[in-house]
């Protein structure tokens, strides 16, 4: 029975620990002065993304490109793909080649890992724009070409800073 009756609105402990007026005023002053400090010396950690882009790390799982000369048509990539994004087709008689459907791909990288001749590889691009959904299903020609880097982009390097959190250091494009 005792458990079903509603308890006091606040626990005893929180009543004891309720702040006094002076403490509250102190906390307000602290918060406001921190805000003023940030206003005077901003510490921005956001990036103006489409114009500035971070340099992506080695082994970044971006878009996937096929090296058509290396591929032996073993179909392993299509088999392992958990999203059924890879499909094999006959590029020529007795010459199977994979193509990718970016509507489905989840960028897990299994296909790149499993390929026995390393015919698939990632490129550090993850933000292509397609005009319609049919364009997202690549054919062999587009799949074997590396996507172009957009122009007028400032590349920056992300550096972890002890005071600021994140810092962006510009790097020259070459």
């Amino acid at each position, binding site marked *: 029975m005792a458990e079903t009756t509603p308890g006091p609105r606040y626990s005893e402990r929180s009543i004891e620990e309720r702040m006094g007026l002076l403490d509250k005023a102190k906390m307000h002053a602290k918060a*406001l002065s921190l805000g003023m400090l940030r206003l005077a010396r901003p*510490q*921005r950690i956001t990036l103006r993304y489409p114009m500035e882009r971070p340099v992506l790390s080695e082994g970044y799982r971006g878009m996937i490109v096929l090296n058509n000369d290396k591929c032996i048509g073993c179909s392993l990539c299509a088999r392992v793909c958990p999203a059924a994004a890879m499909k094999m087709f006959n590029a020529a008689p007795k010459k199977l080649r994979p193509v990718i459907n970016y509507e489905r791909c989840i960028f897990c990288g299994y296909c790149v890992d499993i390929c026995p001749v390393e015919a698939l590889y990632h490129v550090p691009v993850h933000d292509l724009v397609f005009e319609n959904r049919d364009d997202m299903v690549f054919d062999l020609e587009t799949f074997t070409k590396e996507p172009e880097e957009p122009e007028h982009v400032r590349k920056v390097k992300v550096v972890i800073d002890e005071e600021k959190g994140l810092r962006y250091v510009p790097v020259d494009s070459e």
Partner: protein
Amino acid sequence: MAIVERLVDLILWPPLFYYIIFPGLIFVMIFEIFLIWSERKIAGRVQMRYGPLEIAPRLAGAPQLLADLIRYALQEVIIPRTVDKLPFVIAPIAAFVIALMPLIVTPFSPTFLPVTTEGSILIAAALTTIPPLLLILAGWASNNKFSLVGSARESFLIATYEIIILLVIASMSFLYGTLDFLKAVEVQQALLWGILLNPIAAITYFVAVMMGTSRFPFEIAEAESEIVMGAFTEYSGIMFGLAMGISYARMFVYNIIFVLLFLGGWSPLGGIVTGNYILDSIILPGASVAIKAVLISLLMVFTRAVYGRYRIDHALKGGWGFWFIMALVSIGLSAAVVYLMEVF
């Protein structure tokens, strides 16, 4: 040429100039655009972001608000079928107009004011209490649960902050022994600024105005993220733009009153005499009042960057349990100051 002269005459005709240009509609519009932009910029800077920047990055995104305004103006105004049409349409318009009405009695210099009356403080205080009622009307007429929640919250808050504001204004007019802004400013020029005479009243007024014009942390009635602009959920297009401007217009008017009652009105620049009538009686004192009001408003919008939103019961508890008592204390302090002035 005659036409041009006529036009210039018409524009400089005092009532028209006062209501339409300064400190009326056009000035308030520019003030709002500047204030909303700086609010977003300040919040961005403090919260480690950039704020609006995409439109004209060289000007720090300043035209962003103009772009927003154009978008609002060109959008279709949708009036839902379920609303009560007449009050729905009238409420924001009337609220905006009435929010600006206290300006008819607030002087910007000893000579630049449209209506001279003995009871200008009383009239201004009375007129500032009307727009929140129209806010409630808007929410009620919208026939939408978010709007109703917003209206209910606003009506809880009104009861709190209006009493505090009126008590503080009463304490200040008690201190100055007048109900006229002109005399109040004269007393401050002769004696001391009101904020030094009665600092408790100044702080209490400041907080109550933040509560009244839904600034953080009292942005409870609008609460964008919980109840989607509160009473104005159903509004769209230019009506929404207008509704958004109401709280800023009210803040501007309240801050003009703050400047006149606590910050010495046209004090620093108003005393300069250059001999040019327009410069002496309008531009210099008007600029000093307006600049002070803008600075106070910037301080009020700055809190958006720091605070979260109080729950309604916390705000009411703070309002009744602390600031109401502070308002009463400020009356006592005024009495003490008046007594001391009598003695010395």
